[in-house]
């Protein structure tokens, strides 16, 4: 197959599609808006069909882990993955209503629901330990970090709201004035960088895509 077909044509397709999407945003021509509607629904389908590839790579990783550590315990870990994979697949396919069936929802709520909620809980610990290490008043910048963090933390704890009522307006002020100023500036700056990446992609000069070719 020619170099053009293997390398350049996919990049040209990306550029053309991107430009058409932008025309849908800027122009009054209905045809572009219709095209945008079709294209955005198509990419969801492409993505959905691709999903089983994850299973291949997951299996690769499981094999790799077992090769690195050939013990009965590691084998048990690996088997656990496939047992639960099978259980969810069966629960999701065998019952009426598939993923909405009570049987599937039982699995989903008791495992997925609890684990996802607990993951957020674990973050409390990681945030607390990182603050123990980092929230040290050693420079103007770190003082600003500590001030923004601690005052708003105390503002959210009911006990401090009652016994230190001034913390409420002060916490709100930090949140609604310096926080808004800083974050708006950061968002704008990052947005320009994102735009440049976008324009470079349309130009056909995005290095990432070139490398992948």
């Amino acid at each position, binding site marked *: 197959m020619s170099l053009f077909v293997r390398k350049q044509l996919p990049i040209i397709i990306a550029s053309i599609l991107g430009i058409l999407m932008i025309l849908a945003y800027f122009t009054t021509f209905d045809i572009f808006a219709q095209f945008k509607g079709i294209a955005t629904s198509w990419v969801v389908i492409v993505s959905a069909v691709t999903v089983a590839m994850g299973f291949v790579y997951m299996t690769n990783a499981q094999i790799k882990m077992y090769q690195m550590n050939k013990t009965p315990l590691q084998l048990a870990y690996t088997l656990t993955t496939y047992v639960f994979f099978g259980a969810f697949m069966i629960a999701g396919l065998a019952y009426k209503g598939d993923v909405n069936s009570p049987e599937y929802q039982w699995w989903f709520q008791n*495992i997925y629901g609890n684990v996802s909620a607990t993951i957020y809980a674990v973050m409390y610990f990681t945030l607390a330990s990182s603050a123990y290490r980092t929230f040290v008043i050693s420079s103007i910048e770190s003082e600003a970090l500590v001030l923004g963090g601690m005052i708003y933390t105390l503002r959210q704890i009911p006990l401090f709201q009652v016994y230190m009522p001034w913390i409420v307006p002060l916490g709100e002020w930090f949140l609604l004035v310096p926080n808004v*100023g800083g974050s708006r500036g950061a968002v704008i700056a990052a947005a320009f960088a994102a735009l440049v990446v976008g324009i470079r992609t349309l130009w056909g000069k995005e290095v990432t895509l070139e490398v992948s070719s």
Partner: protein
Amino acid sequence: MALFVDVLGGLVGTFFIISVLSMLWKDNPIFRIGQQAIIGATMAHYILLNFKSALNNAVLPMLGGNLLLFVPLLLGVLMYTRLKNEIAWVARYPTGVLVGVGTGVMIAGTLRGQIIDQIKNTVLDLTNSAVSGNMTGIINTLLIAIGVVTAISFFTFTREHKGVLGISAKIGRIFLMISLGANWSGELVWYLTQLIGRLSWIINTVIKVMLLGG
């Protein structure tokens, strides 16, 4: 008394909560069993949801006569060529389609939502305060505007942070740090609530109600 299936659900849920929390202590078989189980479970969930979506939104409508939907289905299948080195280049086509559409969506959304609207809000906040004559409001919104300008100046890379730019960048960095602290704080207390919620569920629902019948 709670139903057996509820009790079983409670115990399974409790096992997984303890499994996740145990990773804070150190690596252990309970954590690893839970972690591996979740990989399998989420993989299956992801496949089920997506294949159902592909079936309902593409395969069935295509069989119903909308032949154009063959194109995204084919593009999706072409992604799998990545698995074989000799034909891996074919996967660039569906990737190009995704990236092209994504770029257009990104540029259109970023221009207004993340740049022009942010500037508009900065101007409008100050204008509204000035019109209302609220002195505190004017000072606050002026501070926001200063924060915006100086924070942007911090992200200047083509010149060294010296002179006026140095001062501005330094002020901007202070605004940015306060913002980081506030973001951290908002999430810390939220996560604490999540911790309370899970512990409360184990103690008040699983132990007291399901097991002790309270």
